C-alpha cells in the first residue's frame, strides 16, 4: 500500500467508484496502464463500491498514507462537499471523473457531458422514427446525477423536438431484471413500441436483447417490426450488437480518456501547472462551470453501424 | 425377579458448570415394577431422567437396558424403542395439531391426515381426554396439554415409561384416570419410573421407591417398608415428620373486606361471581379443568378483562385488565404457568424476584446492584430457594425452586391481596410447607389471600373453600370439610 520508491515522485491516489460495472472495470484497467505511461507513482487504487461513506473513508485513509493528489469519481455529487473542503485545506488537489461536485472546488473535472448523451440519443431516435412512435426509456436511478442528467435531457429534447413520440420512462435502479420486467409489461400494453433508449448498456443490453429475441422482435432495421435501440456506454458487447444489427447506436463514454486525462491532470496539479478555459490539444474543451471549477469535456461520440469499426473507440481497443 | 434389571443407571454423575446435579447415583429397576423416584426440588430427578432417555449423556457412569449398554446418543430411534417419557417441561409443539403432536415423527412416511386424526381420536378417547385432535396444541389449556403428553408417551409401545411429575398439573379426576391406566399397563408387564412430589401417589401406584438428596442416592426400598415420615426424613435429611396443618385462628368478623368481587363475568369462562375476602382471610377456590377458576383468578390479578362486574380492593375499584393497576391496588399474583408467564429465563433470580419493586431499589429508576442482591438474598433465605446465588439465571433452577421465585415476586410488593394459582405445582413436600407457611404468614399480617388450587393439601390451609363448576360457584365449604365433600362438589355431584 505504501508508495513504492518510483524515484521519489509524489504518490497519486485513485479511488474507483464501483466494481460491478463493465464500464468502470474497463476504466480500472486503463488506470495503471496510463499511470505507467505517464511515469506516475500510483498508489494501489481503492474502491468505494458505490457508497459515498466508503469514498470518504478511503479518501481519509489515502491522505493518511501520503497521497499528493486524488482522483475520484463520486457517484453522489452532493455528499463530498465536506471532504473536498478538507482536502483543499490540506492542499491536496482533486480530480473528479465522470461527475462534477455540486459544491466545493476541485482542480479539474474530467467528464463527458451526460446531458449530451440524452440529447444525442433523443435526436437519433427522433430521426429514425420520423418524429412519431412510442419509445421506452430505461432510466438509471433517480438518485444518480448521471442518470438524472440523461433522463432530463432526453425528456426535454423529446418534448421540444419530437412531440409526436410518446416516452415511457421506466425507473430501474440500474437493475437489468427491473428493466426486463418493465419492457415485457410495456410490450404487452403497447405492442407497437418502436424505440428503446437504455441509459447503461452494461446493465440493460443483454436483458433487452434476450427478451426481444424470445418475442421475435429482434429483426433487422429494414423490417417494419424493427425496434430502434440506442444504448449508452460503448462497451465491446454493444459494438458487437451494432455490427449484428441488433441495436442501432450507442454513446461511447470514453473510459480510456477518463483514465488518461484524470491522471494527466492529477500529475499536472502535483507539478503545479494551471489551466485556462478553451480548446485543448486532445479534441476537447475546458469550460469554467463556475468560478474555481474547470471541466474538461471529453468527446463522447455516437457510435452507429457507420463508425463502429473505428479503432480509436475504446471499446474496440480493449478486446472483449 | 428374573434376569437383568429392565433399566439400570450405574454410578452416573452429571455436572452443569459448577453445579453437581447427580453424584455417583445408581438406580436399578426390575422388569415390570413401578418405581418411584422422589426427592426435594433440585435433587437431580429430572437430570437422571435426561440420562435415562438419552437426551444427555452422563459425565461418568453408564445406562443399561435389559443388561445391555444403552444405544449411542445420536440414535434417537433406538432410545425411543426402549423408553418413553413424559417430561417435566412441556414437549408440545404449539403450532401443530394435537393429532400431529401425538404421533410426532411416527406419522408414517406419507401422512394420511384423516387416518391420523382418527387414530388420535381413538387414543384420546382411550385416555378420556376431551380434546379435538384437529385443534392447535398451543390453544389447549395446561392440563389438556399435559394429558396429550401422557397419552403420547403411553401410546409409544415402549416397555419402559418414565413419568416426570405427570400429576402436577392434573386435577383429581384426571389423576385417578391416569392411575387406572398405569395399573393396567403395569399389569401387562410395563416397567415404570414415576416421579412425584405427592407422596400419597407413590404409595398408591408404586412398589419400590428411590430417594435422591443433594444429587446423591439415599435409599431404595419397597414402598411398604418406608412410611411417610421415614420417606420425608430421607428426602430432607431431618428426622422430623411433617407438621400437621395447624388450625388458623378464625378471622375476626370485623376485619375489613380487602377484596370484593361483585357480579364478575367473563363470557365463556365464568358468570356472576361474588366473593368477599377479608383481610387476613385465606379463601380457596377449586373446581375441575373447565370450571373457570383460573380465569377468575387471572381476572382479579389483572391479566384478563372481565365482560361485566367489578373487582374492588381496599374499597377502591380496580381498573380491569391491567396488571399495573392491580399492583397499584395492592393485588399480587402468582400466575398459573411459571414457564409461560412466571419467569424470564435469562434474567437472574434477583431480577425476577424484584421485577415489580424495581422502583424501590434506588432513586429515579436506578436499580442499585447492592440493594438488589441484598433484597434477593433475603428472599432466598425466607423462601429457602436453592440457587447458586442471586445472580444465577432463573433458568438454572429446578422447577420447585423456580416456583418459589414466582411466589417471592408476588409477595415482594407486600400486597394487601394475594392471588395464587396452583402455587405448589411441582414443589416438593418440604418446600410446599415453607411456601404455604409464607402464605399463611402473609395472611397473619393482614393480607387477604385468594388461592386457586386442585390440591387438597393447599386447600387445607384455607379458611373456606369455594367450589366452581361450569363457571359458577356451586359450593362454599367452611373449614373442617372432608375430602369427599370437595371431590363431590368438584365433580358436580348434587348432594
Amino acid at each position, binding site marked *: 500500500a505504501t508508495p513504492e520508491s518510483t524515484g521519489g515522485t509524489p504518490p497519486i491516489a485513485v479511488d474507483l467508484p464501483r466494481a*460491478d*460495472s*463493465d464500464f468502470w*472495470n474497463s476504466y480500472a484497467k486503463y488506470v495503471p496502464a496510463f499511470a505507467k505511461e505517464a511515469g506516475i507513482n500510483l498508489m494501489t487504487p481503492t474502491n468505494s463500491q458505490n457508497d459515498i461513506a466508503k469514498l470518504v473513508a478511503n479518501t481519509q485513509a489515502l491522505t493518511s498514507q501520503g497521497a499528493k493528489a486524488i482522483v475520484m469519481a463520486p457517484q453522489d455529487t452532493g455528499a463530498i462537499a465536506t471532504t473536498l473542503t478538507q482536502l483543499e485545506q490540506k492542499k491536496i488537489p482533486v480530480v473528479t471523473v465522470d461527475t462534477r461536485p455540486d459544491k466545493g472546488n476541485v482542480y479539474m473535472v474530467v467528464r463527458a457531458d451526460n446531458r449530451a448523451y440524452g440529447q444525442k440519443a433523443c435526436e437519433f431516435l427522433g430521426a429514425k422514427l420520423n418524429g412519431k412512435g412510442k419509445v421506452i426509456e430505461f432510466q438509471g436511478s*433517480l438518485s444518480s446525477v448521471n442518470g438524472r442528467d440523461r*433522463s432530463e435531457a432526453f425528456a426535454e429534447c423529446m418534448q421540444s423536438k419530437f412531440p409526436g413520440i410518446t416516452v415511457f*420512462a*421506466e*425507473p430501474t435502479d440500474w*437493475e*437489468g*431484471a427491473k428493466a426486463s*420486467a*418493465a419492457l*415485457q*409489461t410495456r410490450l*404487452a*400494453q403497447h405492442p407497437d413500441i418502436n424505440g428503446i433508449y437504455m441509459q447503461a448498456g*452494461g*446493465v440493460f*443490453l*443483454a*436483458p433487452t*436483447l*434476450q*427478451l426481444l429475441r*424470445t418475442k421475435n422482435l429482434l429483426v433487422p432495421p429494414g423490417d417494419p417490426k424493427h425496434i430502434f435501440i440506442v444504448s449508452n456506454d460503448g462497451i465491446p*458487447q454493444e459494438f458487437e450488437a451494432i455490427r449484428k444489427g441488433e441495436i442501432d447506436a450507442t454513446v461511447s463514454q470514453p473510459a480510456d480518456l477518463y483514465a488518461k486525462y484524470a491522471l494527466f491532470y492529477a500529475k499536472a496539479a502535483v507539478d503545479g501547472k494551471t489551466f485556462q478555459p478553451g480548446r485543448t490539444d486532445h479534441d476537447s474543451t475546458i469550460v469554467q462551470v463556475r468560478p474555481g471549477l474547470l471541466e474538461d469535456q471529453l468527446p463522447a461520440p455516437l457510435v452507429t453501424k457507420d463508425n463502429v469499426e473505428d479503432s480509436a473507440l475504446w471499446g474496440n481497443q480493449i478486446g*472483449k | 425377579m428374573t434376569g437383568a434389571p429392565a433399566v439400570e443407571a450405574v454410578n452416573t454423575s452429571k455436572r452443569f458448570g459448577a453445579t453437581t446435579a447427580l453424584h455417583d447415583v445408581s438406580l436399578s429397576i426390575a422388569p415390570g415394577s413401578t418405581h418411584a423416584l422422589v426427592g426435594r426440588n433440585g435433587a437431580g430427578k429430572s437430570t437422571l431422567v435426561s440420562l435415562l432417555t438419552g*437426551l444427555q449423556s452422563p459425565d461418568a457412569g453408564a445406562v443399561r437396558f435389559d443388561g445391555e449398554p444403552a444405544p449411542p446418543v*445420536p440414535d*434417537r*430411534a433406538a432410545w*425411543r424403542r426402549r423408553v418413553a*417419557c413424559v*417430561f417435566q417441561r412441556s*414437549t*408440545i*409443539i*404449539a*403450532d*401443530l*395439531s394435537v393429532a400431529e403432536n401425538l404421533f*410426532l*415423527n*411416527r*406419522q*408414517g*412416511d*406419507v*401422512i394420511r*391426515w384423516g387416518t391420523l386424526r382418527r387414530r388420535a381420536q381413538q387414543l384420546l378417547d382411550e385416555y378420556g381426554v*376431551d*380434546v*379435538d385432535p*384437529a*385443534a*392447535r396444541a398451543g*390453544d389447549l389449556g395446561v392440563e389438556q396439554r399435559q394429558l396429550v403428553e401422557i397419552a403420547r408417551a403411553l401410546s409409544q409401545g415402549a416397555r419402559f415409561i418414565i413419568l416426570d411429575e405427570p400429576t402436577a398439573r392434573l386435577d383429581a379426576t384426571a389423576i385417578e384416570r391416569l392411575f387406572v391406566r398405569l395399573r393396567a399397563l403395569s399389569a401387562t408387564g410395563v416397567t415404570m419410573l414415576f416421579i412425584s412430589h405427592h407422596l400419597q401417589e407413590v404409595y398408591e401406584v408404586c412398589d419400590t421407591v428411590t430417594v435422591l438428596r443433594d444429587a446423591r442416592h439415599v435409599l431404595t426400598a419397597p414402598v411398604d417398608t418406608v412410611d411417610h415420615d421415614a420417606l420425608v426424613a430421607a428426602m430432607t435429611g431431618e428426622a422430623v415428620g411433617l407438621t400437621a396443618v395447624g388450625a388458623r385462628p378464625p378471622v375476626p368478623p370485623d376485619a375489613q373486606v380487602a377484596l370484593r368481587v361483585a357480579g364478575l363475568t367473563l363470557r365463556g369462562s365464568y358468570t356472576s361471581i361474588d366473593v368477599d375476602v377479608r383481610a387476613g382471610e385465606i379463601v380457596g377456590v377449586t373446581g375441575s379443568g*373447565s370450571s373457570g377458576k383460573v380465569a377468575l383468578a387471572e381476572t382479579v390479578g389483572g391479566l384478563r378483562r372481565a365482560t361485566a362486574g367489578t373487582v374492588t380492593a381496599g374499597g377502591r375499584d380496580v381498573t380491569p385488565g391491567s396488571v399495573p393497576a392491580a399492583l397499584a391496588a395492592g393485588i399480587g399474583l402468582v400466575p398459573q404457568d411459571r414457564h409461560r408467564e412466571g419467569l424470564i429465563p435469562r434474567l437472574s433470580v434477583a431480577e425476577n424476584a424484584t421485577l415489580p419493586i424495581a422502583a424501590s431499589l434506588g432513586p429515579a429508576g436506578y436499580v442499585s446492584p447492592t440493594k438488589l442482591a441484598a433484597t434477593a438474598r433475603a428472599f432466598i433465605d425466607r423462601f429457602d430457594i436453592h440457587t447458586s446465588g442471586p445472580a444465577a439465571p432463573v433458568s438454572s433452577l429446578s422447577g420447585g425452586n423456580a416456583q418459589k421465585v414466582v411466589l417471592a415476586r408476588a409477595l415482594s410488593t407486600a400486597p394487601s391481596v394475594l392471588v395464587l394459582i396452583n402455587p405448589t405445582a411441582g414443589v416438593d413436600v418440604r418446600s410446599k410447607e415453607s411456601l404455604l407457611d409464607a402464605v399463611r404468614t402473609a395472611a397473619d399480617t393482614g393480607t387477604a389471600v385468594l388461592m386457586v388450587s386442585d390440591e387438597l393439601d393447599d386447600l387445607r390451609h384455607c379458611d373456606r373453600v369455594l367450589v366452581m363448576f361450569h363457571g359458577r360457584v356451586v359450593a362454599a365449604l367452611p373449614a373442617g370439610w372432608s375430602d369427599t365433600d370437595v371431590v363431590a362438589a368438584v365433580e358436580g355431584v348434587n348432594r
Partner: protein
Amino acid sequence: MTTVPARLSGIRLARMRDLTLVPAILVLLVVGAIVDPVFLSSTNIINVLQQQTELSLLVLAETVILIGGRFDLSLESTVGLAPALGVALVIPAASNGLGTSWPSALAVPLILLVGLLVGALNGLLILRFGLSAFIVTLGMLITLRGLQIGITGGKNLFELPPSVLYLGNATWLGLPLSIWLCGLLFAIGIAVLGWFRHGRAVYAIGGNVDAARAAGIRSDRVIWIVFMVAGVLAALAGLLMTGRLGSVAAAQGEKMIFMVFAAAVIGGVSMNGGKGTLFGALCGVLVLGLITNILTLAGVSAQWIQAVYGLIILIALILARVTTGKAQDS
C-alpha cells in the same frame, strides 16, 4: 366445552390463515383491470408469473428454512455466484472465463453444485460450529458476492452456453418453462411439507427443537438438508434469471433478499419458526408481482413510484390483518 365448534373453528382458522392474501390479490386484480384492460390479458398475466419465477424459487427456499426456525440471507448472492462460477468454468478465458474450459455440458450441473456447496457450508458453520445463522449467512452474502466480483473481475458474462440459457428461455405448450418448473417445485414442496414425515419434521423443529429432538427427529440433519436444498434452489433461480436476462450480471440477485422475506412474511410465514405454508408464501410472491406490474402499467411517476410501492405493501399487510383478525408475530 363442546368439541364440535372447536374443531370447525380450528380447521377454518388454518384454512383462513392460508387464504389471508386472497382478498388482497382479488383487490389487486380488480384495480389492475381498471388501470388497464391489458392487465387481465393472458400475455400480461404470463409475464407477471414469469417475472416472479426467480423470486418465487428463493421464497420457496427461504420459507422452508424459516419454518425450520433458521435464516438464510446468502440466497441472493448464490443467485449470482452459482451461474457466474459455473459459466466461468466452462467458457474460454477470452470471454472472461477462468481458463479451465471444461465441457460446456457441465455448466448446469456445476451451477447447481455450487448452490449445494454453499448450502452445505452454511449448514456446517451454523450447525456444527454453532454460529448464529443470521450473521453466518450475512457474512456469506458478502463473501459470495465478493467472490463473484473477484472471479469475473466485476464483468457481466455475456457468452453463455445454450444449455445455461435454455431453462430461463424455453416455452412449453405456450407457457414459459420456468413457470412450469416453479409450479412443479411448489407442488412438490407443498406435498412434502404437508404430507410427508420429513416435511412435518421441519415444522416440528421450527416449533420446538427440543421437543422435536425428544421425539427422535434428527434435527441437525434435517436442517442441514434444508440448507442444501435451499442452496440448489437459489442456484436454479440464478440459472433461470441468467437465461431470462441473457447474461450473468455482476449484481445479479442483489437486493432480492428483502423481497424474499417480504413475500414470505406477507404470506404468513413466521420469522420465529414452525409456522407458515408454501401456498401462503406463493400468494405473497404474487401480491408483490402484481403490485409492480400495476404500477408499471399505471405509469406512476419515477419520482413517487417507490413511496407508492411501499405504501401498498403496508396496506396489503393491514388488509391481511383485518381479514384474518389474527395478530402477526415478530
